[in-house]
């Protein structure tokens, strides 16, 4: 499958922020080194399978997770509660939905699982070594978040 994963991630993420959030974001260069240690953060994970298997994860520092939730729900948020977790899970859902569309144009069909959301003062999220990964950082006013796409590489 010939596709520019970086562009797929940027387009899908940008679309969510332009439409439902109406928050300006800028994308950065894909990370050269894996980031897997997170502090005071919220991470939404969503697996997918079908023509290709993988996982999409969005990692947000708490402040950014709060800003996104407040923007989507129109109410202020003081702690990582159900609304914040559901919002980050829904972000993963919508971003991967956009990536699914891009894959479909390439003739690759994927089905989404259900999102899981992790949160904590300090945690690590690790993948498997048989997956390729692309992580794109995005900036908004309240900070930076990462969108990471892992794909099972064909042996």
């Amino acid at each position: 499958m010939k596709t520019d994963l970086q562009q797929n991630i940027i387009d899908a993420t940008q679309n969510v922020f332009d439409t439902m959030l109406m928050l300006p974001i800028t994308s950065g260069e894909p990370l050269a080194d894996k980031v897997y240690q997170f502090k005071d953060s919220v991470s939404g994970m969503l697996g997918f399978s079908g023509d290709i298997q993988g996982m999409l994860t969005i990692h947000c520092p708490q402040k950014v997770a709060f800003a996104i939730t407040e923007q989507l729900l129109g109410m202020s948020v003081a702690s990582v509660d159900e609304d914040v977790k559901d919002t980050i899970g829904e972000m993963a859902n919508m971003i991967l939905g956009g990536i699914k569309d891009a894959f479909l144009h390439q003739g690759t069909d994927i089905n989404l699982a259900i999102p899981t959301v992790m949160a904590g003062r300090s945690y690590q999220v690790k993948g498997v070594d048989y997956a390729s990964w692309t992580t794109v950082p995005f900036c908004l006013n309240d900070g930076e978040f990462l969108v990471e796409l892992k794909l099972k590489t064909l042996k």
Partner: protein
Amino acid sequence: MGKRILIIDDSSTMRKIVSRSLRQAGLDFDEILEAADGQEALDLLEKEKVDLILSDINMPNMDGMEFLRQKKENDSIKDIPVVMITTEGGADIIGEAKSLGAAGSIKKPFKPETINEVLSDLI
């Protein structure tokens, strides 16, 4: 009594998000009702009058498609317009929803303008 919209989605957060989008879209309605799945929606519709329904597809207990099927068989509610809200909506899923009576579909993520375009004629 003003217009009432029913939102069916298993995520309470998603229901809040859709509620907010409806208000931002500037549509003419007075009240929003909520249900967590197709069965809850059918139970609610036995007692409450509703002018428009927005429904998720993937829900536990009774999903959006089954809700459409059962609604079609019920004379008192079969004519209420239903718009499906999808994340993964491929042409086949949307086609199936339409064949079951859905008036349209909106794919997440959506702008308030899209809500307006799809819904303003239906409410």
